[in-house]
Structure formats: structure tokens, C-alpha cells
């Protein structure tokens, strides 16, 4: 099944609006929802958030586009509200954080496997192993600070174990810049992947910057600061895959196509009936917006939008576990480091990155401190000890 972006018209822009009740609907259940529904909600908030960010920057740089940008921005903001308000209030910032890392892992793993360009696929695998480690660090924090089991959130889809250690992820800014795809020859999927990942990483950075200070525990505060810093590196990395030479309207068109692609990917596999209806409606909104921007693009740039976006959507994101792929990547590539836009073995890492890292970690590493000796166990790391203690007490009473 695919979607024809030329034929589909969606809901016209002027007919798109939401009431407060529609924007602030009933949240999903933290306990009963499938982890991938939470993952989809998180991703789509990131996609909407990136869209809003881009449309604002575009308005600051393009006088002639200010009006159409303002019109689209208003509904995008309402859509983001609708999506983000699906999170329930009983889901703590740390629990939501676990969901954020699950998005980064499973989404990136899917993208890395489907990416047709070998260099881009390598870049996605590189980022994947870093986010994979973040989940482990946050899981340790959740266990040790709040007495919680991260698997209640990740639901056995995702391994909770170290990846590329967070403390060695800190690099010199010039070792985070990658080579962009060639806009003339890149596969449409490569473009959609880059736009999707930069959106996901950017919102993750912003989320950690927002919730980090809400914690009282000094290690939690430092850990959020540390991982937010890596997310900034990841934004730099994925953003640099997008060629700066693309015109503003090209970028806008690709943003809209990314929204259509991701909502459509959510719709096809959603198991939550009410949220499935939301994805369906949002897809129709986005198709209407894409139509609007397509016409704008074609009238102003005097070329066919099909030169930039595909006529038919490629295969959707697969919302499933990618355990085997991730384990194999871990085995093969955990020791890779970045040197400029290239990937090298740890021993060849540039001095500039090592110096940056030493300076950051000179007073200790929060990500190491939080997970010192941590091994995830069903029911938390305390579970085996608690069981032994209870049994020995029972024996002493008998």
C-alpha cells in the first residue's frame, strides 16, 4: 500500500481548525497503551515541533512568504498541541524520557536499515548506538532514584544495556558535521529520513533542557545536562545531512512531505482506535497543507514539485523491535568514533575531541556515576536481593 501525493488532496487549509476540546482530548493510558503508540505520539510531537521551528525561521528570512507561512503555522501549532497533550499526567518526566529514547532507538534502527545511501546509513547507525546508551543511563536513574522499572515503559521491545558509553560521545563540534546528501541524486527516502531524524533529535534536546531542572537529585540534573548536550550534537549531525543549498521553498515542501510520510506511517500500524482516528485526521490536514505548499512552490519556483518530493510515498516506518539489528551494530561498531565527517576506530579519534571530552568530564561523569555497575533486571535491580532477603527472613521465622 502506498499513498499518491499528487492525487491525494486532503482537507483544504481553510477548513482546518481545532477546538480546545479537540486539541486537549483524553490522554492514552500509561499502563495499557502499547509502547509503540507512545513512541508514535512522541515522534509526531517532534515532527510538529520541528515544523513550527522551521516555519518561524523561514518567516524571518523571507518577506514574500510571511503570509502563507503564518497561515500554515497556526494550524501546525494546534496539531502539535493535539498530539503532545495525548501524554497522560501520571507519566513522569523521567518515564516520558524513557519513551523519548525508545523513539530514538527504534526509529533510527528502522531508518538505518532502510536507508539506501551507505554513508547516510552509517551515520544513522552511529547515532543509534549513542541513543541506545542513553536509555540504559536513564533506566538506571529511574530504578535508583524513583524505584521504577524502565521496562514498564519500553515493554520488552528494547534491550536495556550499554551502547557507546555516553561519556565518550562528547566531541569537538567539527567532528559532528557530516556530508549532506546530493539534492539532485538523493533517493526520496534519504531526504525523508534526514528530516525525520533532525526533528526527533531536536525535540529530545528541547525536552531535556526543559525537564532537567525539574529534578532535585544532583546526578539527575547533571545527567539531563550531559545527555541534552549529546542531543545537541545529534541535531548538528542530522541537520548537516540536509544540504544548505536547498531553497526555502524546497525545504518547506520536504517538511510537509515528511509530515505526510510520518502521519501515514503512524496510521497504518496504530492499534489504539481513538489515536488511529487522530492520525487519519492529521494525515488529511497534512495532505491539504502539502497541496497548498506544492502550488506555492510550483508557482514561485516555476518547476515541478516532483523534482523535490516523490509522487508516491516510499515504504512506511516499521514500528517494531529491531533487537537483532541493534545487537549486531553494537558488536560491529561500538568502537567507532567521528573524525570530521568520517568514521574511524577509537584509536584514530582526533585530539580536539579528546580534549573537549577531558574538559567536560574532569570533575566526573554523570552518566558513569548514575549507572555504576547497573544491570537491568525484571522488577528493578533490587528485585533479586529483595527476594533473597525475604526468603532468608521467612526461613528464620520458621
Amino acid at each position, binding site marked *: 500500500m502506498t499513498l499518491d501525493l499528487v492525487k491525494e488532496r486532503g482537507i483544504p487549509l481553510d477548513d482546518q481548525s481545532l477546538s480546545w476540546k479537540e486539541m486537549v482530548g*483524553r490522554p492514552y*493510558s*500509561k*499502563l*495499557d497503551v502499547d509502547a509503540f503508540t507512545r513512541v508514535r505520539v512522541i515522534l509526531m510531537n517532534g515532527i510538529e515541533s520541528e515544523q513550527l521551528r522551521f516555519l518561524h525561521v523561514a518567516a524571518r528570512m523571507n518577506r514574500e512568504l510571511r503570509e502563507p507561512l503564518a497561515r500554515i503555522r497556526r494550524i501546525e501549532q494546534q496539531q502539535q498541541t493535539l498530539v503532545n497533550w495525548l501524554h*497522560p499526567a*501520571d507519566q*513522569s518526566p523521567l518515564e516520558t524520557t524513557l519513551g523519548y529514547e525508545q523513539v530514538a532507538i527504534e526509529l533510527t534502527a528502522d531508518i538505518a536499515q532502510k536507508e539506501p545511501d551507505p554513508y547516510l546509513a552509517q551515520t544513522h547507525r552511529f547515532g543509534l548506538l549513542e541513543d541506545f546508551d542513553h536509555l540504559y543511563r536513564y533506566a538506571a536513574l529511574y530504578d*535508583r*532514584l*524513583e*524505584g*521504577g*522499572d524502565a*521496562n*514498564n515503559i519500553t515493554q520488552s521491545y528494547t534491550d536495556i544495556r550499554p551502547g557507546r558509553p555516553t561519556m565518550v560521545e562528547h566531541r569537538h563540534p567539527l567532528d559532528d558535521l557530516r556530508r549532506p546528501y546530493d539534492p539532485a541524486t538523493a533517493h526520496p527516502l534519504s531526504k525523508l529520513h534526514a528530516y525525520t531524524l533532525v526533528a526527533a533529535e531536536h525535540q529530545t534536546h528541547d525536552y531535556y533542557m526543559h525537564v532537567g531542572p525539574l*529534578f*532535585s*537529585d*544532583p546526578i*539527575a540534573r547533571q545527567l539531563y545536562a550531559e545527555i541534552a548536550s549529546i542531543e545537541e550534537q545529534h541535531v548538528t549531525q542530522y541537520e548537516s545531512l540536509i544540504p544548505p543549498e536547498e531553497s526555502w521553498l524546497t525545504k518547506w515542501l520536504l517538511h510537509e512531505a515528511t509530515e505526510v510520510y510520518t502521519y501515514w506511517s503512524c496510521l497504518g500500524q496504530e492499534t489504539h482506535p481513538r489515536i488511529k482516528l487522530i492520525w487519519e485526521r492529521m494525515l488529511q490536514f497534512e495532505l491539504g497543507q502539502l497541496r497548498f505548499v506544492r502550488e506555492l512552490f510550483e508557482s514561485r519556483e516555476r518547476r515541478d514539485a516532483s523534482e523535490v518530493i516523490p509522487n508516491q510515498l516510499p515504504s512506511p516506518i516499521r514500528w517494531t523491535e529491531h533487537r537483532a539489528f541493534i545487537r549486531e551494530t553494537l558488536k560491529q561498531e561500538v568502537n567507532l568514533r567521528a573524525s570530521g565527517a568520517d568514521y574511524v576506530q577509537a584509536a584514530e579519534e582526533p585530539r580536539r575531541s579528546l580534549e573537549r571530552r577531558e574538559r567536560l568530564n574532569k570533575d566526573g561523569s554523570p552518566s558513569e556515576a548514575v549507572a555504576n555497575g547497573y544491570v537491568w533486571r*525484571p*522488577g*528493578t535491580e*533490587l*528485585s533479586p*536481593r*529483595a*527476594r*533473597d*532477603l*525475604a*526468603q532468608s*527472613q*521467612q526461613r528464620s*521465622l520458621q
Partner: protein
Amino acid sequence: MSDAFDTGMNRTGIATAPIEAPKTIQGAVEGRGPAVDGAAAALMRSTCAREAEPIGTVPPPASLKGAAKTVLKALQGEKASVFIDKLGERLAFERIGARLYEVVLIKAEAYPTWPGGPSREELLEIQRDELSHFGLLQSCIEKLGADPTAMTPSADIAANLSKGIPQVLADPRTDLRQCLEGLLVAELADNACWESLIELAQEAGQDEMVRAFEAALQREELHLGRVKGWLKQGVAAALGAKRSPDQPAARH
């Protein structure tokens, strides 16, 4: 050493701004809109409450073996899930409790204690009790064929109700006495909840569990008594420290 009872530059009250505060009051009065009775907000909240979906559900037992059959027979249908839900609540609370005492152990090293305050050994003993109760509840839930790693609705609600406790305890700025205030809230809730869990176990005909839970409650009563005593002594010690040597104690 300064403590949380010291007076200082607190700016939160209106008396801090004798010149600007009256103007702020005047501004609010001048900007006052027509009087409303608040019914619209109440209606909005009650509509949402009627339309809301539950926090979540209790997972069905993974297997119906041994005691699970007995308890299901005694409690019939839905009531069995009430028992599993509440066992899950206690399990999560005891697990959090073990972590709370870990944090307080750190605070007891970082901040001064007082005569009659907690010793490291006493805190460790309670921490072990909490852990042991967590272990006990794991085996009870398993005996019923249920999954002790699941977060039940009551476990989730209890964690949300007591969210402020780990937040206060983990804050490096809170001293040992302030942390004990957090433990007091936790131990009060814990005692009351063990009592109701014993009643549920009795209804379920789980005599062995009743005996184990009564033993756990005894330990929890001891914890509560200790925390109350430490706090009382802590406040008395702070008062003593504030009093000048020639100032007599106030009469009650």
C-alpha cells in the same frame, strides 16, 4: 551552622514590599471583571471526569495455579484483581521505600544529626525491612499467578501521590530533619495500607499471607514510631540551639 529554621531574606510575603504591595492590590481591584460563581469551571471539570478513561487496568494473571485458584474462588471474579492491584501497590511502595532510605542514609552522613536522631544502623535496618517486604510481595503476587513486574493502577496512583517525597529527599539542600518529614508521610501511608491489605488477604482466605503481612505491619509500626521520635527530638534540638544559654524554655 545555619539550618532551615534560620531567619533571612525571604521575599515571598506581601510585607516585603510596603510601597509596591498596596499598588498591586489597587491594580487587581481596578481590573476586576464581573463577578462569576465558578460554575463554568466546575462543569468543565465534571464533564471531563465523566468522559475520562481509567488510569489503566490490572494485568490478567499469567497462570492460574495453586493459590491463584483458591483466591479467585474466595474473591470471585473482579475482586481478585482488586487484591492483585493492591499487592502491586504495596510492592511498588516498598521498593520506593528502600530507595528513600538509601537517600536518607546519604543525608545522615552529609548533615549533622542530634541527640535522639537516627543512627546509621537504625536506618539500614529499616531499609532492609523495606527491601524484604518488597521481596515478600513479589512471592505473594507470583503465588497468585500474577506478574510482580507489572505496574498496577494503584501502584501508579500511589507513586504519583507520593511523588514529592523522593523529590524532597534527593534535593541536596534539604537537611536530615526535613528528609524525615518526607519519611513520616511515607510511613503513615504505608502503615494504613498494610492494614487494609491484611483485610483483603483475610477476605481472600490467604492465611499464610495474613500472618506474613501482620509481621510486616509490626515492623512498619516500629518504623513509624522511630521516625516520629527522631523528628520530635530534631525539632527540640533545633529549638535548643536557637535559645540563648540564659533564655528559659517556653512553657506549653
